[in-house]
């Protein structure tokens, strides 16, 4: 069976004064229907750009240039017309963002905003669409949805706003939901509730979810497959259990080690990855992680590593895989 979404060699360049910058460089992965798929990396690794490129949200006349393929249900999103893309957005792919307060329009009620999404894609009467909105809010677990539907975003709590945004994204029952750091701005307890709700709705609606996050804990709990990105490239990909049990790329290993767990003893220093993500245009010819990698030698800085298939669906982009093998 063909996957729901197949991203193949996606490349996104931004035009700037100092020439173009490649923010996403040859990213490929596949999301299946009903699957929770994690896209992981530090901020600035290009994960949000990847998702917004798939949605074609950038200004293509002035700012961004895409190449590669993003095939949703047999249709290449990167080559369809803007008009067709508008039909697809909100109906076949939806997106939720990190900060629900600034992502919801402050001057409209949430009911209005949910109904607008409906109106774009389905012909429904006023009352029907209102009922659908209330129904959707109930599904996301908002208490007394028939009252909340007439609230403005500023009248809701952070968790409720995020639920309202999810209701808005799912009201047309899309095949794919892109969730861009959906819980980062929330309290830890609310985070868990929201993630649980997303997983629940994913199963009920049998949709694929592309979860973009820097939180490995969330990924471990919810995703079946994971892609790790660094500076616009996929550095490791695999089933969730493989990646967490047997990470092969030094960057993934570093990321996993720096997550505090219950077993971490008090007083033990938490291991960190040295340095920080360098600016994109400073990326050298060789491995992009070389400057921060504990295993890197001179060769790594010159020769760009290829994505090596490790079997069992796991791949890693490193020249020193023999040193990282479990």
């Amino acid at each position, binding site marked *: 069976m063909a996957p729901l979404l197949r991203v193949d060699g996606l490349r996104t360049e931004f035009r700037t004064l100092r020439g173009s910058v490649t*923010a996403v460089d040859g990213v490929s992965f596949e999301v299946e229907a009903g699957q929770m798929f994690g896209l992981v990396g530090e*901020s600035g690794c290009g994960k949000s*750009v990847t998702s917004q490129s798939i949605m074609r949200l*950038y200004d293509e006349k002035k*700012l961004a240039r895409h190449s590669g393929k993003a095939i949703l249900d047999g249709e290449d999103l990167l080559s369809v017309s803007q008009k067709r893309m508008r039909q697809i957005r909100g109906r076949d792919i939806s997106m939720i963002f990190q900060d629900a307060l600034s992502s919801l329009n402050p001057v409209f009620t949430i009911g209005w905003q949910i109904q607008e999404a409906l109106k774009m894609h389905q012909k429904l009467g006023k009352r029907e669409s209102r009922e659908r909105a209330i129904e959707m809010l109930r599904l996301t677990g908002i208490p007394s949805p028939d009252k909340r539907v007439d609230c403005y975003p500023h009248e809701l709590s952070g968790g409720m706003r995020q639920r309202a945004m999810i209701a808005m994204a799912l009201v047309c029952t899309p095949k794919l939901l892109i969730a861009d750091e959906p819980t980062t701005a929330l309290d830890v307890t609310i985070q868990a509730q929201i993630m649980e709700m997303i997983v629940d709705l994913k199963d009920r609606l049998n949709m694929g979810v592309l979860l973009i996050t820097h939180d490995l804990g969330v990924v471990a709990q919810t995703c079946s497959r994971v892609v790790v990105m660094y500076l616009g490239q996929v550095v490791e990909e695999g089933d969730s259990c493989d990646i967490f049990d047997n990470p092969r790329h030094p960057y993934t290993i570093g990321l996993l080690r720096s997550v505090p767990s219950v077993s971490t003893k008090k007083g033990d220093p938490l291991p960190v990855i040295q340095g920080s993500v360098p600016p994109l245009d400073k990326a050298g010819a060789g491995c992009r992680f070389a400057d921060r990698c504990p295993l890197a030698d001179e060769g790594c800085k010159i020769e760009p590593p290829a994505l090596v298939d490790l079997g069992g669906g796991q791949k890693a982009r490193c020249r020193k895989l023999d040193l990282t093998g479990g």
Partner: protein
Amino acid sequence: MSEQVLKEARREQRKVMLGAILGQRVALAGFFIMVLIALLAILAPVLAPQGPYDINPLDRLLPPSPKHWFGTDSLGRDLLARTLYGLRISLTVGGETALLSTVIGLALGLLSGYFRAVDNVVMRICEGMMAIPPMLLAIALVAALGSSSENVVLSMCVAYMPMVARVARASTLSVKEQTFIEAIKSSGAGWPRVLFGHIAPNIMSPVIVQATYIFASAIIIEAAMSFLGAGVPPPDPSLGNVLYDAKSVIFKAWWTTVLPGLVMVLTVLGLNILGDGVRDAMDPSGK
């Protein structure tokens, strides 16, 4: 990175296109225009071919010529002379208004931003004053006080002062909360020192921008008041008076309107550009 790159890309696009046309270069142009205008005004006695009050009944309404660059008006006065001296008077009136209203407004704004009790009284009064369009307030005052250039300055100053006070108050309120003010207070400084020594220097930039706009606006309003009979009293040549005289002969002598008008537009334009430039330079978020 992605968001950063995007923001940078957008900012750069703006800079490339608009910046080249209207950015800092224009602010610099505004500065040079003002230097030129100020020089013209200062050198009026040297540049003018004759006095601004010299009447030559035989030379009435002459078009521009090598002898009279700007032509002459209906009384045969040389228009270049009247324009240059008019520029002098307009700049003086506008400058004095800007300076005076800024100093008083700044003091009131500082005090009402710092002391709540003062705030309630001063700001209520300012709101009441600002409910009257500034030009009307100035006209009413000139009408009451009698028409002279001192009274024109005084009246416009009263009309503009509340605006400066409001800007100064808002900035004072935000600066007062900052940690360094706490630190200075805890080191035992009295309120005059805190307020005028430490808060005042930190709120100068918005106040200066405001002062530039008041300068420009005062020149326009003085001229408008001349049209209503409440400006600098004739025969003194303010730019407004020169243009008011031109109105009655507009069918016969276009130059009496166009040439002094150009000088006036250039002056106000220079001040406005300068104000925009100062504002942009002080506000790096660049709206």
